[in-house]
């Protein structure tokens, strides 16, 4: 039996509606999930994990995030034993970080006036393997500049 091919002269238009539906749903998902607030967090810092570490209910009015970690290769192996402060895309040793804290203070005071530093919380994101003495040295430097409020970050661990 001979088959007859239908003779279509018009252009075949696929139905785009289901695809647009899915794309919009994906777009909405990514827009909701995205978190622009965490942009100050440095991925090279492997934070300690803790059950009690819950995201704060009230966010501090002003914050200065300091990431302290190690230079690591892609596999996560430490390249140097000297802890580094990752700040503004650059790396500084804790001993050399004082002038940058001064600079942060000047910026905070230019923005919020004298005493703005009292309202600023220093958020310390330190690697779990950083020697405590180094973290304390950094805290001491911040104290000398005038910071009094500190917050130690850890990753929320689910049991």
């Amino acid at each position, binding site marked *: 039996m001979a088959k007859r091919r239908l003779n279509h002269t018009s252009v075949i238009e696929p139905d785009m509606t289901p695809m*647009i539906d899915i794309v919009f749903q994906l777009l909405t998902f*990514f827009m909701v999930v995205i978190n622009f607030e965490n942009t100050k967090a440095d991925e090279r810092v492997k934070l300690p994990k803790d059950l009690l*570490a819950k995201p704060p209910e009230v966010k501090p009015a002003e914050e200065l995030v300091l990431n302290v970690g190690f230079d690591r290769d892609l596999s996560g192996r430490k390249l140097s034993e000297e802890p580094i402060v990752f700040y503004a895309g650059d790396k500084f040793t804790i001993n050399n970080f004082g002038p940058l804290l001064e600079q942060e203070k000047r910026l905070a005071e230019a923005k919020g006036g004298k005493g703005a530093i009292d309202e600023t919380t220093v958020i310390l994101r330190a690697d779990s393997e950083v020697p405590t003495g180094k973290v304390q040295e950094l805290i001491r430097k911040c104290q000398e500049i005038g910071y009094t409020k500190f917050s130690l970050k850890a990753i929320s661990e689910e049991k």
Partner: protein
Amino acid sequence: MGSKRRPDTGGKVDVPMAPMIDIVFQLLIFFMLQLKIMAPEGNFDINMPLGQSSQQSSDAPLVPDIKIKLISDDNGNLAQLKFGERNLGVGDGAFEALGAEVLKIIGTPGNPATKDIEVEIDADYELHYEYVIKAVSHCTGKIDPQTKQLVRYVEKIKFAPPRLPKNS
């Protein structure tokens, strides 16, 4: 003046979808690339003005401050956890014991008499920071297994003046 005539299209009006789909795809790609999957982070607040020490307080507290000492080995691992002068050992059990000791001192969680009690953490220079966070966490409180809520023990935590490195 002649009357306006509406053009008679006859069929349905086709809205061009291609530009919208282009934009939507670009937005989708932007948000997909921006997305960083990160575990939720929490924090422990400590209040440390310069020069503050437990001896400076003018009012004698009802309960003395709690002193915790963390001693490290040469590799930065915890070698000994001391609560006052008592040795609590090492490992997770030591931290559990620390939480129990703190609870013993404050009596009941939220006790107004022990609300102002302060914990001072004195850690060796080389000790890995994760142990300090563990100690801070076990002094701060615990998660109630039934309610899954935080039961708070102590709110005020501070560090003792930094120690010098062992090899200095």
